[in-house]
């Protein structure tokens, strides 16, 4: 395989996952939390694709595509929730939205 070994890709994925986890835990805006979640999902995707290349097996790439579809669904629902929060004039702050009461 030309270029870096699979391990280097995994290191990039690990750092990316750490950045995303930091964003999810530290930021309070639900929009930024969703974006950070996307970063974490993509780090997982990079790991799947890297191992698919390592093993010479396509299953990892199939899983990465499935993760992409689930991420699209998650964004649709998450953005729907954020718009619903904005409609009810709630503060856009995940710390404030702690009750499930409609």
């Amino acid at each position, binding site marked *: 395989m030309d*270029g870096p*070994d699979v*391990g280097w890709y995994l290191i990039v994925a690990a750092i990316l996952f750490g950045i995303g986890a930091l964003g999810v835990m530290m930021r309070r805006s639900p929009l*930024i939390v969703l974006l950070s979640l996307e970063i974490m999902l993509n780090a997982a995707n990079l790991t799947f694709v*890297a191992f698919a290349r*390592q093993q010479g097996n*396509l299953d990892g790439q199939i899983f990465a595509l499935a993760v992409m579809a689930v991420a699209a669904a998650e964004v649709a629902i998450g953005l729907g929730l954020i718009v619903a929060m904005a409609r009810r004039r709630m503060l856009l702050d995940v710390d404030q939205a702690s009750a499930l009461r409609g």
Partner: protein
Amino acid sequence: MGNVLVWIIWFIAAAACLGTGVAVVSMTNPFYSALSLIGNLASLAVLFLLLSAEFVAAAQVLVYAGAVMVMFLFVVAYLGGRADAPWAGGPPLLRTAAVVAAAALLTEIVVVLGLAWGDDLTDPSQVSASFGSPAEIGEAFLTDHLLAFEITSIVLLVAAIGGVVLGTTREKEEEIA
């Protein structure tokens, strides 16, 4: 020679990937955050190409950087100034705990990688030129992974209905409130 070129491309893509990742997490304006995420997804697509995953890279750019991020930018535009996200991350104790937890996660992953480094991670298998091409992905989806393929469509349908339900205003709400 080709080897060096691949290393250079890998390094640029990886650096862009991590840099835009930090930008997504640290921007106060969600619009810039979303734009940085597009850059992040594009550089990840380059890494996917280097891993001979052509179809995944194309889907990443089309579906993710295209469709999903447009949806995101629409919501940011809809919210306008209300979407601005000041950095204040709650009490200092919680902020410290968040950094410690993220650092712990990262350390765990890196330690596991370091332990596995010499054995399996440096000897990739040989793959044919058509590995990861749309034809091979399609064949795998419609033979071995047909159930996952069909369930994915149901997940997307449920999410679409859920998005519509969450987005519509109901008359009843006025009475309750």
